[in-house]
């Protein structure tokens, strides 16, 4: 397995556990961490086809869009793992409607996000943060 693929799987697993993936509803969890389904199809056959609502890979299988939306995760003080920056081809990142997610915005936007040089779209909505966004833009 290529190095980038190992890192991709590792990053996705950290995201899954950071947001208590085992407690997600089935529609959101769909195939997550399955060894028999490509990670590009984890939640890939969701009925929601809109741009914002699915994960996406490029032709090589590198993640270009990571979406966690319409979950009912009820995670208090959830922290975005800095390992997310291992998804170096990421162009879009969307965390939405995460009812009950609260905490520091700086935890949701780790400083390392600055290293995602291909990121063009960033959306976080419907969450609750206790602090303004102390983002350090590189």
């Amino acid at each position, binding site marked *: 397995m290529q190095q980038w693929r190992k890192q991709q799987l590792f990053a996705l697993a950290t995201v899954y556990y950071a947001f208590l993936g085992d407690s997600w509803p089935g529609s959101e969890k769909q195939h997550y961490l399955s060894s028999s389904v490509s990670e590009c199809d984890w939640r890939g056959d969701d009925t929601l086809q809109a741009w914002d609502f699915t994960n996406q890979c490029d032709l090589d299988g590198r993640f270009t869009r990571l979406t966690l939306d319409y979950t009912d995760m009820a995670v208090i003080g959830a922290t975005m793992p800095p390992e997310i920056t291992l998804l170096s081809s990421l162009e879009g990142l969307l965390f939405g409607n995460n009812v009950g997610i609260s905490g520091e915005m700086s935890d949701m936007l780790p400083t390392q996000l600055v*290293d995602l040089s291909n990121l063009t779209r960033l*959306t976080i*909505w419907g969450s*609750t943060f206790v602090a303004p966004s102390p983002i350090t833009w590189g």
Partner: protein
Amino acid sequence: MTQLTWLSLRWNDLFGTILSALGQLTNLSDIYLYGNHLSGTVPQSLCQLPKLTELWINCDTVTCPNGCECTCGADP
């Protein structure tokens, strides 16, 4: 992250003022900040972003400076 063109942080209960440092992301064209509890004035650095086409704020709590093109978004 300097390639960012789209930044949407709507409906997150954010408060405080809008960071002028956002103006360093010079490729930004779409900024959605409404549905929060932000206050103060939109920093000139945002208004002057060369590619800006959409800048949505809560006009009842955030002031849009003269010459800056803001759109008023609604609370959820």
